[in-house]
């Protein structure tokens, strides 16, 4: 392997890791809801777009960037609270397919309504950082990606800490483990459902700003959310750590596919390789790398 090849690989891997971190952030939103409420949220990508739209529109009305981010966060928390209360609470205890269908419908609704209200054009969502890449030895690092990866990392660590170390986090794990028993321990389960959705709102808002900054905000942005599925299947639907590792793996695999296979076949492999990996993982480890295999004593 020549010097250039090595550098090229290194570049792909670092870029993949950074993108992967950002996938992990969005996947975290999905995992939080699944863990706490057993709901599979097919609208995760649309949440991200909605948040990006809130931030982009705020910036267009010449609000400062930080205010736009806060608006997106507050807006998404309110949106998720409302959604939980108005739609999903009614579906509690119904077959899981009801929730799945509701979120798919919701996804279409968000896409359509936002295009109707704000037009189909791409909106820029510029981060207040320079566009000049930083060089770390031979590796080139675009600042937007670095900020995105950094913010994702901070929040992933923060959520992990919250889950494992705080009483609220442990109570949330208890709710995830067994709702009836958690209720019997004096946990207000409804409130924890709402909390899970609110956290998802925060994660989606951050994801929306970061991904919006990288790709621009339009009705193609939800496609990012589809990547959540290979990520969470790989990591395990109910594992926070799994979401991180799954995100990183998918990010790197995608970057390598784009770097090595695309030139050979003329592009496009990056878009399906993650799903190929997902199918393989489903066949080998259906509960994911870190998913809950029920502890069973024999």
């Amino acid at each position, binding site marked *: 392997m020549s010097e250039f090849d090595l550098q090229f690989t290194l570049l792909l891997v670092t870029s993949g890791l950074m993108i992967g971190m950002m996938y992990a952030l969005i996947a975290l939103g999905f995992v939080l809801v699944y863990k706490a409420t057993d709901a599979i949220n097919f609208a995760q990508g649309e949440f991200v777009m909605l948040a990006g739209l809130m931030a982009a529109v705020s910036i267009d009305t010449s609000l400062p960037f930080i205010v736009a981010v806060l608006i997106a966060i507050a807006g998404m928390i309110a949106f998720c609270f409302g959604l939980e209360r108005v739609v999903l609470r009614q579906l509690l*205890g119904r077959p899981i397919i009801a929730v799945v269908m509701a979120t798919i419908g919701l996804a279409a609704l968000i896409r359509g309504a936002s295009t109707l209200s704000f037009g189909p054009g791409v909106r820029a969502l510029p981060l207040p950082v320079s566009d000049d890449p930083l060089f770390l030895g031979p590796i080139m690092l675009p600042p937007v990606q670095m900020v995105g990866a950094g913010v994702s990392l901070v929040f992933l660590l923060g959520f992990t800490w919250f889950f494992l170390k705080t*009483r609220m986090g*442990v*109570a949330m*794990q*208890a709710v995830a*483990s*067994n*709702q*009836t*028993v*958690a*209720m*019997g*321990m*004096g*946990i*207000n389960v409804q409130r924890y459902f709402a909390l899970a959705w609110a956290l998802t709102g925060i994660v989606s808002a951050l994801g929306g700003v970061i991904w919006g900054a990288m790709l621009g905000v339009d009705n193609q942005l939800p496609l990012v959310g589809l990547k959540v599925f290979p990520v969470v299947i790989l990591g395990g639907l109910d594992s926070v750590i799994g979401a991180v590792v799954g995100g990183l793996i998918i990010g790197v695999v995608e970057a390598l596919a784009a770097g090595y296979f695309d030139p050979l076949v003329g592009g496009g492999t990056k878009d399906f390789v993650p799903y190929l990996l997902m199918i393989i993982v489903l066949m080998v480890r259906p509960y994911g790398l870190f998913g*809950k295999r*029920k*502890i069973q*004593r024999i």
Partner: protein
Amino acid sequence: MLSINNIEVVFDGTILVLKGVTLAAHEGKITALLGANGAGKTTTLKAISGLLAAERGAVTAGSIELDGTRLDRMAPHDIVAGGVAQVFEGRRVFDGLSVEENLLVGAHTRTNLTRIRASMEEVFSYFPILKERRGQAAGYLSGGEQQMLVIGRALMSDPQVILFDEPSLGLAPLIVENIFRIIGRLRDEGKHTILLVEQNAALALAIADHAYVMETGRIALEGPAAELRQNPEIRESYLGLNDAGARRSYRDVKRNRRRQRWLA
């Protein structure tokens, strides 16, 4: 005193499961609730702890009171905060959480950390093995240890009343003996009011002060435990005892069964 006054419980809006159950659990006493499978014992406990709604059940008549406070209109978390803890059937620990975390979840309704620590030490004094295993995932404990953990977890809410649902189920005799000794200590030392649901009537009657026998959603019999231990029908149907050495023909048994059809 925990009192249940003539309650009816309906599932799914149509299925009448409890048909007018009245019972009282006196302070600092063990009250046993006996009966066969499906008699409505667990449903009675769930009615007290407010967990019927999760199974689309509801108390449709009567009232449940703890020292005059109505429990039957309260949410489950308020009932726990009000001093009623439940030890679930079948050792339902939170698998992935450690022993210590399980206990902390049990103290969810409390905020004073020093007093929570004190409760945890109390639990460890009842069950020293849990202290040794405090960092382990609860899913990997043995069955007996898990039963100790769920009892300890219930104690963590500093309850006035503890509802036990089949604490002997699926455990080895020695462990059951140990668990029941602890239940006795919870009454004598901890001054807890205990409502004990058991299928093993001999065990329950040996420890209880008062007992009720449930059959198909009704209370069929009640009395001081010492009296029920001597009751011929109880001895026959629940304790599997009869007059020592007497041989009985199948026809006698059959007649007895027919006579007791209302019981079964």
